[in-house]
């Protein structure tokens, strides 16, 4: 036979962000507010631990589930969110949280199963469900709810029929967060309708108002939740590709079965860096977080001064303003052409995102200032 993509792959359209990415890459002098990763480097302590591990020749595979020492540190760190997981069999270290999500879909979804995907969201959830043979139920959140997930939008979308619900808070692309009371309602919805949860908490540390809360800490939720986290965002370690999943032992075992046949083990060098990051780099995280928060204040203030509507995003490093033009995709392209400022049209992130733009403030303050000045010039 000739080589051709499977129907399953053909069914998934290329990433909506791709066209915009190609446009931006072709231009010089672009100030990009379109970057979904920190502008900081990983804390020096973590980098130094990675270098030392290489000098010592620690370049072999690790245990499939990840180094025991690392899983212990992850378990200890999870106490900050009132979560208790056994490093022996309830934690799986993966090549980024993305791998963890992919294998969770494949481990849990049977052909035809419904997976409710809260949107706008990170671009890989829906394809992940499709690749696993599941059916996506789009759950658009609403700007009037500040893009929080509510039982109303879940029922409206028919998510009560779903086997699984996947969401991310603090959210990419909106910057929305969920507080304890709001999550309690989602927990109630999941228990009442027997829906399991994949909770992507990769931005947990980047919460600027109040403390991050995980749905797994609510009564009756631990057994029906997998928590995803990693080192890419809070520790600025995107390129080191390291994440993890925490959940009940049976489901972690199922995920590990796929992981051991595909990835074998997460990158060893990154695991050494992550152990050091969890042990000794909290101050670096807090400093980065403080800087993000100032930039968030700055960008929100500038939007307000320009008369651009934007709800007060309280997490991650994104704000999600309403597009000053009629068509967000066209506006983003025109802004890029005219002023060389890149903001990603919300439509790249699924349902509920129409008419919005994602602006990342993971960029230096001088660039942010310049980008805001250029945006102001463009819309006036």
């Amino acid at each position, binding site marked *: 036979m000739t080589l051709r993509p499977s129907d399953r792959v053909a069914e998934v359209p290329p990433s909506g962000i791709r066209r*915009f*990415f190609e446009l931006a890459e072709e231009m010089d002098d672009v100030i990009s507010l379109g*970057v979904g990763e920190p*502008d900081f480097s990983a804390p020096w302590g973590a980098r130094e631990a990675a270098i030392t591990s290489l000098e010592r020749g620690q370049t072999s595979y690790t245990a499939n589930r990840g180094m025991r020492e690392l899983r212990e540190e992850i378990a200890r760190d999870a106490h900050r969110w009132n979560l208790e997981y056994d490093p022996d069999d309830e934690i799986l270290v993966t090549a980024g949280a993305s791998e963890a999500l992919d294998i969770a879909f494949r481990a849990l979804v049977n052909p035809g199963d419904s997976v409710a995907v809260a949107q706008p969201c990170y671009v890989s959830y829906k394809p992940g469900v499709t690749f696993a043979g599941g059916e996506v139920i789009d759950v658009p959140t609403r700007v009037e709810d500040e893009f929080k997930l509510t039982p109303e939008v879940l029922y409206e979308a028919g998510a009560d029929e779903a086997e699984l619900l996947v969401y991310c808070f603090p959210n990419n692309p909106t910057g929305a967060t969920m507080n304890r009371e709001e999550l309690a309602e989602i927990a109630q919805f999941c228990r009442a309708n027997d829906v399991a949860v994949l909770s992507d908490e990769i931005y947990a540390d980047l919460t600027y108002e109040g403390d991050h809360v995980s749905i797994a800490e609510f009564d009756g939720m631990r057994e029906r939740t997998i928590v995803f986290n990693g080192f890419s965002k809070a520790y600025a370690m995107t390129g080191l590709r390291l994440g993890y999943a925490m959940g009940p032992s049976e489901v972690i075992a199922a995920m590990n079965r796929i992981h051991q046949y595909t990835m074998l083990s997460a990158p060893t060098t990154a695991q050494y860096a992550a152990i050091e990051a969890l042990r000794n780099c909290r101050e670096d995280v807090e400093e980065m977080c403080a800087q993000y928060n100032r930039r968030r*204040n*700055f960008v929100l*203030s500038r939007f307000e001064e320009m008369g651009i509507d934007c709800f007060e995003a309280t997490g991650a490093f994104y704000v999600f303003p309403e597009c000053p033009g009629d068509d967000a995709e066209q506006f983003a392209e025109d802004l890029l052409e005219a002023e060389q400022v890149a903001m*990603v049209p919300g439509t*790249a992130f699924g349902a509920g995102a129409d008419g919005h733009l994602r602006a990342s403030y993971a960029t230096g303050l001088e660039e942010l200032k310049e980008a805001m000045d250029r945006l102001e010039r463009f819309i006036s």
Partner: protein
Amino acid sequence: MPRNVLVRSSVVFRMDQPDELLELLCENARYSTGDLARLTGRTEAEVEATIDELEAEGVIQGYTAIVDWDEIDDQRVQAHVELNVTLDRETSYRDVAERLAGFPEVQGLRLVSGDYDFALEVEGDNMREVSRFISDKVAPLPEITQTVTHYIMETYKQSGHRFDDGGDDDRLSVTP
């Protein structure tokens, strides 16, 4: 050119959360009052009032530029000088410090722990000028027992600012 703010650290301040403002001013003393207000979520008037108070209380001692003189081919020379002194009943460290601080060549002066007493930062138009200053003006002071001069050969980082370009942003310009 980044600018630096000079802060006296020994003063205990009672103003409403000035730490963050000081941190930002130390990062770049040229941030406008408007930007400081946007960054900290305060009003411009509050920012203005806090800075006025910090200046009045002597917490902020001044503002200065961090300059890489090599970039404009300036030949000036800087030296780090270790000084040992001997004191008597009439002469204190402060007395010696006051005499030394009066010289315009002395850019920095600190009393330190360890093998020597004072750490001086001295600046001159050339090496001969700095050497003459140490031998003619500093060493002869009666309290000075020893001087050790280290000429600065290269500056990589000063007041928290690195003198290289800090590396290019090698991230992709748009990522999900």
